[in-house]
């Protein structure tokens, strides 16, 4: 089978999420091209549906990046975000899909290193697990 490009989707909050990403790239950090960042006002806006839908549309891994808990611009948004992600993970494990395809992360706008770490972690997951398709020889 032809080498397929991995696909990672990252929902980043407009406050610290995106700021963290920008500081990272503006500090010369590069990351895998397969990562697609999508802005949301706050990770509290992210709905399990978006995450599952992204996987349906062909994403191999999805991460949600929000403010540090207790420092969320909208006070409790990133805590909500984490709960949604955990719920989706539980659903995935019930349908036999690796829950580690979906992760929640928190970062602050001054954490350039963390963004590169997050994306490399998720791209590794995407590459390791590959697309969601029948496992070889029915295992």
């Amino acid at each position: 089978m032809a080498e397929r490009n991995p696909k990672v989707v990252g929902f980043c909050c407009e406050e610290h999420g995106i700021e963290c990403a920008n500081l990272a790239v503006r500090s010369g950090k590069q990351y895998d091209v397969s990562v697609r960042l999508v802005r949301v006002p706050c990770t509290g806006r992210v709905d399990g549906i978006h995450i599952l839908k992204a996987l349906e549309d062909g994403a191999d891994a999805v991460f949600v990046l929000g403010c540090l808990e207790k420092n969320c611009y909208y006070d409790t948004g990133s805590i909500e975000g984490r709960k949604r992600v955990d719920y989706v993970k539980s659903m995935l494990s019930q349908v036999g899909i690796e829950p580690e395809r979906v992760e929640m992360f928190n970062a602050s706008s001054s954490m350039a290193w963390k963004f590169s770490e997050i994306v490399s972690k998720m791209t590794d997951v995407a590459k390791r697990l590959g697309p969601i398709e029948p496992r070889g020889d029915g295992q």
Partner: protein
Amino acid sequence: MNNKVLVIGGGPAGLTAAQALVSNGEEVVLVEREDTLGGMARELACKGISECRNCGVCYVIDLAAEILRTPGVEVLLRSEVASVDKTNDGFKVKIRSSPRYVTGSCIGCDKCTEACPVEGKAIFAPTGSGHPRAYWIDRDRCLHFKKAKCEKCAEVCPTNAINYDDRAKNVTRNVSRVILATGMDPIDAGEIPRLGYGTIPNVVSSVDAERALNEKGRLVRPSDGVPPKKIAIIQCVGSRNEKAGVQYCSKFCCKYGTKIGQLMIDENPDTDLDFYFMDLRTLYEPQDEFKKWADSIKRKVEKKKFPRVRLIRSMPSQAFPGDDGKVWLRSSGETDSEVTETPYDLVVLSVGMRPRTLPEGLARSLGLTTDGCGFARCEDSELRSKVAVLGAVCEPMDIEETVTRAIAVGSVTVRKEGAT
């Protein structure tokens, strides 16, 4: 009427003051000596992993970026105040700003640094997480300005951001008031030789630790790059220390010391931490919070629980190197005088601070004096309504307190708030 205000220093205090002033409809001239805004905060690490630990670093970094795009603030980087002269409605300020030689279209790809032939490089990345994110050239080192006329960086730069024709500028501004926020200098841990900083590779200062954590998010042993299994953090290095000529307590060390400790433990669950301190002076949290946390961290070995964090109320007397990069600390017990020696993979020295020393001329023309500990005051009866001293240059304080003071002072007709 002239409503410009000169802010000297682009750290937490200066930035916050600038923002407060602008939102009060005043104009600001912000003079920063370094290449980026953010001051100390540029090289401090965010202490959170998934939860915020209130270090305030991100606040300053965001602010630095914001100030750069705030109309009404004239930011002069790599600049120093050359002279200040009283005028009838304020001051005439002469500022000398050195050229950066790199334009805003720099994308920080670091190709130039790779290309730079100079030993120890002549073109540098913006410091820490400060803003703007543009590189800068040190004229004194750069070969272009010597005979060689070297242009290697310009050749490799993908965005043609190198501009050798950039010239030093002498800027003159008339301002009504001056806010001095030149901040502090961390104490050089080398001043206390017995703790082995500079001589023992795996003894690092908190400044190094913060820098490493801010860049890589990990703290490893300098000797072999291995994550440490057993760490010691020693508080009050330099602070509360007659010998170092620092009688005062630097106030924020307990805060960052404890938080660095917590960060290390959170990051790798198999690390042990010994926390050496004299008094636990964690800011704005219950006096037993850190102790409670320390008690809660246990390792389970066959159903038995062992503490992983020990709080030791003692100042180690001596550090000496052991084999395979170990550092031994000799310390006497809290109460008994029995001396123990313990090996560590990594020792972090929480250094205190000294106020940045003021240039003679500047101090004189602004009527600034320093107290016994070197903290700046403005006692001059006539000037004190026009000159304010903010931030760690007037008293030890952490980011949070600095910001609060700056909001309080920056946004009103200046009065010397602060030092008791």
